[in-house]
């Protein structure tokens, strides 16, 4: 019930924004977002951290049933992976409202109402345990974002919004096709429909490897567009550049995570055999994305576009962690989702603050702002360092874990030149990646330093450069120092600092003491990776093209866990909707 409340709070607030006068829109939105944050805080508090892999706060079965004939339900629950992302979403909500105060001055009601709806949809994605519910929320995030970009974006907003919508929509439709196929094949065999995630997961895993390959292909394509993985990333720089600041923050902070969340939550468990088999391919795509995206960042002149492209490189690391299919890599990847949301979100906020003052994002027109905006500059350097992966800050922990996950995931360890006298390498895990993948991806760390320091060196350091019309001697020469720019002073206001400080504090906390989070993620991650590796191995051994529609032995109706398969620990908690 609590999850339903969580999702309904922003919806209710959206309705109130719609009926209340425009002058109240922002306050109501803020209250709604804070309500979500408080609710999420309460959930974090009452979450059972001893059983992190268990699906908690599940909606009871009766009230969640939606379309019984199709087995569609509103089933929701969270384990610690979902909980973390719910917390991230809830955190960024109020920050986005606060950051929009001076940036958004028109059509306030529409803006805040859609932002609240978006919040609802995003929370729905992370809570859903029914594939149709998940997909609906997943798709519904597009509409508010489309509207935010096309109404409050910059000059090229129409094109950016359309491309964003069409591209990601096409991708998700393909993902839906994969989901529907699995559900259909289940219904075909069992004579009844269900979209319950756990049921379908177990069913999907029992499909032959070749079929799993197609399922994975469909899911991967859909989620890869959303992540975005190279070469499906081109909507992202455009959308980011044109979106209003809060839109960019949500886009980078949460929307991209829908893709990676989909991968870890659904793609991996739905098609473990295929995922393990194709891990080297996925890793290769990630590595290309890391280097390609990183190098492109290095030649940008639009600072916002630079940060947008950096997401392509960063999420390459994130998915690389997933491709390693071990606890180290997948935990790192989930941490990466959170950390990227914090640091890149903050970078977009910072760029937005400069844009409000100078109305440009071009690094040719901006430079040496440390002289004018020391507080802003301090935050900029801080978050750039978090993004570059400086140890002690959050980005490092996850980046290192993703790289190390890929490094250790190789069957080659302990054999041949990688062998040891005793034939043991205690740090190795099974897999098909290994040292070379990690080494090549690791050069992305150097590239990240190149482009982020290039950006910092241009915008923060160096001789002061301001766009034409802004005095280069500022306060001294003309004695104003402010007041032309929407009432904003030269350096950051208390509100703006207040927006950044929680993010900065979390960056430090997650960098210095990530241990509890890693511990909390361990069980669900271990469950996922065990399933992936074990099922992967079992399925890969099977003949590639088995006779059609043969159900593996032991997977009969009324035996939900399948006699031949290890029962996942969370099955106890999960809901069988289609009984």
């Amino acid at each position, binding site marked *: 019930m609590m999850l339903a409340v969580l999702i309904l709070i922003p919806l209710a607030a959206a309705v109130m924004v719609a009926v209340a006068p425009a002058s109240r829109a922002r306050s109501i939105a803020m209250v709604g977002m804070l309500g979500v944050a408080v609710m999420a805080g309460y959930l974090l508090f009452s979450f059972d951290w001893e059983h992190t892999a268990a699906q908690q706060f599940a909606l009871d079965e009766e009230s969640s049933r939606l379309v019984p004939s199709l087995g569609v339900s509103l089933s929701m629950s969270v384990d610690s992976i979902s909980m973390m992302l719910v917390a991230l979403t809830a955190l960024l909500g109020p920050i986005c409202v606060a950051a929009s105060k001076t940036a958004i001055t028109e059509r306030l009601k529409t803006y805040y109402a859609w932002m609240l709806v978006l919040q609802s949809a995003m929370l729905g994605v992370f809570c859903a345990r029914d594939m149709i519910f998940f997909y609906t929320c997943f798709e519904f995030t597009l509409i508010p974002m489309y509207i935010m970009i096309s109404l409050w974006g910059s000059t090229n907003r129409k094109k950016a919004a*359309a*491309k964003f*919508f*069409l*591209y990601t*929509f*096409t991708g998700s*439709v*393909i993902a839906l*096709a994969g989901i529907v*196929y699995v559900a*259909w094949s289940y219904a075909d065999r069992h004579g009844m429909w269900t979209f319950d995630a756990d049921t379908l997961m177990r069913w999907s895993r029992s499909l032959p490897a070749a079929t799993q390959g197609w399922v994975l292909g*469909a899911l991967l394509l859909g989620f890869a567009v959303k992540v975005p993985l190279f*070469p499906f*990333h*081109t*909507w992202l720089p455009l959308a980011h550049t044109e979106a209003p600041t809060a839109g960019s923050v949500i886009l980078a902070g949460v929307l991209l995570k829908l893709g990676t969340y989909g991968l870890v939550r659904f793609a991996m468990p739905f098609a473990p055999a295929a995922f393990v088999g194709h891990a080297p391919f996925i890793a290769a795509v990630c590595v290309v994305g890391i280097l390609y995206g990183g*190098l*492109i960042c*290095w*030649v*940008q002149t639009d600072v916002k576009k630079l940060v947008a492209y950096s997401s392509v490189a960063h999420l390459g690391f994130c998915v690389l962690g997933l491709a390693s299919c071990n606890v*180290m890599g997948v935990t790192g990847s989930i941490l990466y989702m959170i950390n990227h949301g914090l640091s890149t979100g903050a970078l977009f906020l910072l760029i937005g603050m400069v844009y409000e003052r100078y109305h440009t994002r071009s690094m040719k027109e901006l430079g040496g702002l440390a*002289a004018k905006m020391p507080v802003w500059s301090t935050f900029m*350097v801080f978050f750039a*360092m978090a993004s570059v992966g*400086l*140890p*002690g800050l959050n980005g490092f*922990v996850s980046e290192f*874990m993703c*790289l190390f996950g890929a*490094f*250790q995931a190789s069957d080659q*360890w302990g054999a041949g*030149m*990688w*062998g*040891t*006298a005793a034939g043991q*390498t*205690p*740090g190795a895990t099974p897999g098909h990646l290994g*040292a070379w993948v*990690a080494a090549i991806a*690791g050069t992305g*760390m*150097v590239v990240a*330093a*190149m482009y982020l320091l290039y950006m910092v*060196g241009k915008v923060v*350091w*160096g001789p*002061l450069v301001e766009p034409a019309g802004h005095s280069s001697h500022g306060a001294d020469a003309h004695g104003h120092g402010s007041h032309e720019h929407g009432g904003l002073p030269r350096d950051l206001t208390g509100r703006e600092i207040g927006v950044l400080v929680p993010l900065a504090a979390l960056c430090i906390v997650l960098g210095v*003491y*990530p*241990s509890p989070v*890693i*511990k909390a993620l*361990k069980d669900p991650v271990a469950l996922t990776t065990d399933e992936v590796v074990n099922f992967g191995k079992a399925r890969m051994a099977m003949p590639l093209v088995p006779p059609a529609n043969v159900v593996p032995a032991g997977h009969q109706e009324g035996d939900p866990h399948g006699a031949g398969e290890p029962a996942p620990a969370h099955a106890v908690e999960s809901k069988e909707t289609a009984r």
Partner: protein
Amino acid sequence: MGFMMTLSTILATLASPIAALAQSEPVHAAQQEAGHAAAKMEAIAAPGVGPLWLLLIPVLPLVGFVLSALCAAFKVKSKLPAWLTVLCLGASFAVTLAMYLQISSGQIANPSVATGFEWIRVSWGLGDAHSIVANFGLYIDSLTCLWMLFVTGLATLIGLYASEYMAGDVGAGYCRFFAAFNLFVFSMSCLVMGDNLLLLYLGWEGVGLCSYLLIGYFYKKPSAVEAGKKAFIVNRIGDLGLALGLMLTAVHFGSIEYSVIFAKAQPYLTALSEGRLGDIPAVVQLIPVLLMIGAFGKSAQLPLYVWLPDAMEGPTPVSALIHAATMVTAGVYLIARTYPLFLLSETALPIVAWTGALTALLAATIGMAQFDIKRIMAYSTVSQLGYMFAGLGVLTSGGAAFHVFTHAFFKAMLFLSCGAVMHGFAGQLDLRKLSGVGSMPGWRVVGIAMLVGCLNLAGFPVITSGYWSKDMILGEAFANPHMVAIGWILLLTAGLTAYYTFRVYFRVFVGPKYFEPGDEVHGHGGGDHGSHGADAHGADAHGHKAHDEHGHEGHGHDAHAHFHPHAPGWAINTVLAILAIAAFAVIGLRFVGGHEGWVSGLIEHSSANYAGHAMYAAAASHAGAGGDEHAHATFFGYDAHTAMMYVSGVVGFIGIAVAFVLHFVGRTTAAKSRADALLPLVGPLAKWAQGKWYVDELYNAIIRVPLLVLAHLFHLIDKAIVDGIVDLFGWVPKFTGSSLRPSQSGVLHGYALSMAGGLAVLVLIVVMVMK
């Protein structure tokens, strides 16, 4: 060579009483080492539990950082941050001293581990067998003590110096400076004291960040910004090697904690000492090769040394502390700390030795041709670091560590003296524009400090600590039959070092009094520091050019007609005096506490002491049968260690004498000396050396430019092809849409169309699949 030998004999007769002083140890060192090797066969002791107050050593500088940051937040416009810094760092030094005393008296076990809290723990199996743990914990042994003593000690002194040096920037810049200064000491403590490789990595990158921030301290100056960026990126290349080495260690040994690694490496060390090299897998031999890439980056060795000379853009106290005394020795520390791993590879230490020797020589040749005195000191740092690496490579970790220790004092002093000159003469660093500074009123302390520093750097025989520490490395190189070539390179470098060091001294500190002030006028507040330089060199990408050209920019003398150099005040003079005394005092350490001095005595009880062990093994494997006798090479029939005492002394003497003749005798102006007449003799060599052998240009041409081209190419491809294909797909519905309903535009249209398109695809797929 005959000449050299003759000189050596002459000096031998002259100096025999002095030599007798030190003769007893090296002669029998070989046997003693062999004995140690045998005694050291057992594993490095399992660590005891250290007391938690040791955590104060890193925490106090962190407190200093927070306080300085608060000063910045509250816009403190006084020297408060400096005093807070000196207080915190001084306290940290006191705790370090207590740690050292307790370790040496056995109250704290050597080694010990003091665990603060759990930083990262990832386990993927059931037990601890499959987990990687990185605690915020400290590994305390005598190697840690040695490093922390000079890190915190020098940081305190240099903090005091900086309180005066940075006085022109009191305000935001002052707070920023001291915040980064404290953060540096914190990071350095993590690097040195961390009980696992990941915490070392944290410190490693942390000092890199502080270096970046402090090099770019004068942020309005593009050359400073560029230099900071270069330092960070070049270091990151090294860091990648370190990270991969760390991962390989983790995969192979299943841990990154030193105590576990050393315990698990022990069977390999035993195999090595028994000559069973085949039992050591290739993957283990790869670990040190990866780790050393990190060491080469941080310690500015070939091929990653290029960032250090540019790092001189930072304020001088930073150059002294970070880029001369402490941070750049992190690479030496890393190798010393993981020495057991380095010994497991047949190639690792020879690579280290050759890299060190070649870097030493290359940097010395560049240093000979520069005019910017601070930059000469930078190249001398690179060169001296080369000595330390060579020392590690020729298996005298004690000698390398002793050189680190002595170098820390005299090089810090040299930089601080140069800094005092720079401070007093408005940024003037060109040795052609300064002369006789040492005899100007108020500059006496600086002059003496500079002389002491130069004597040490040049390795003036017997009375300087630099002589003794360099000698240990040289002697060991010649004593090792496989490393004689390295010995010769280092000996040649010693001569060059003496020459270029005293070139600076004879040009700038003695001779006719003359000066041209630089173009920075001190004393005006705020962050305007260096903006002048920025205007003048706006387009200049590299700081060194900027500096070399200062003199040609036509700053007329009129502009500075009333310029008076301001002599250093009490803080600077006190620090210089303390350092000058310390530079001499550390000679005493050569003769106390162990047969090779106090430092070697400390090293002996740490992970870095496998030198004897390795020599034993190397002899066993290389010298063929019966090789468990320590194969000792000789220097033309004399014992290498003894002979080096004379030879290196003579070489140093010659270098100084040449500098005296060329740059002091008969010099009447600041700009010209007799050396100029010799320039045509060496042809373009002098110009090339002045151009730093064009290594920067080479790297630019073969790495940076191709990458830049590639990046632009990718950007084009991204726009034209990757996105082009997408647009192509986008065009089809758009085209059909617009031809059907040409004037309709807007949101709903797009929705409808895409929904329809999506559904069509969906239906298509479902139908196909169901078929």
